């Protein structure tokens, strides 16, 4: 994989993550403005998302060759 492809791939990934963050933040903001409380389910979902990120990073580190 060349330099350009790697950069393009990483950028598209960052963009995807940024847009999903904006989506989550906007949704929650709308609900709070409408007077709806934030549920523990919402926090549990983000905690689970964080755990998944942690697991994926650990797996990637474990399977990567030494530098």
């Amino acid at each position, binding site marked *: 994989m060349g330099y350009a492809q790697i950069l393009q791939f990483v950028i598209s990934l960052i963009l995807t993550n940024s847009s999903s*963050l904006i989506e989550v933040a906007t949704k929650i903001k709308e609900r709070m403005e409408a007077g709806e409380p934030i549920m523990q389910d919402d926090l549990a979902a*983000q905690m689970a998302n964080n755990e998944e990120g942690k697991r994926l990073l650990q797996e990637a580190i474990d399977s990567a060759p030494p530098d």
Partner: protein
Amino acid sequence: MMSLSRARHIEAVNYTWQQTWPFLAIMVVLFAIFLSSCAAPKSFEEGLLYGYGQNAALQKSAAISLQSGAISKADATRVQTMANQATAALDAATQVGCGVTPEHVRNAPAGTPLKCLKQVPQSALEQLSLANKVLEALQSFLNNMTTKK
């Protein structure tokens, strides 16, 4: 059959695109980060949700960047250390500010509202602030690593 001048024109366009697209892509990423910060949370509860979500996104980005060779194993290990610091700070902020442990949150029945204290203790705000600082540093580190390659 394509004329020689047409072929040269296409070649010139391709060359220009190859030269400029990395710059354009970096500009787009910076704009996305700017938009993301505009949607940043205002309340303590929002701050917790946003913090866990952003930490997850950065760890996933780091995992795929490592797999694609865009960052080194040492860089990924550093990301992991910082992400763990952010998680610990967010967990502490949740516990002090909302009176619930991550374990409680995971086992709460569906539809239970997240009721954080109206007067959030200073220590909880400090933990959330610490998590945000670590996340900012993490994002900056990851951006530097991926654009350096």
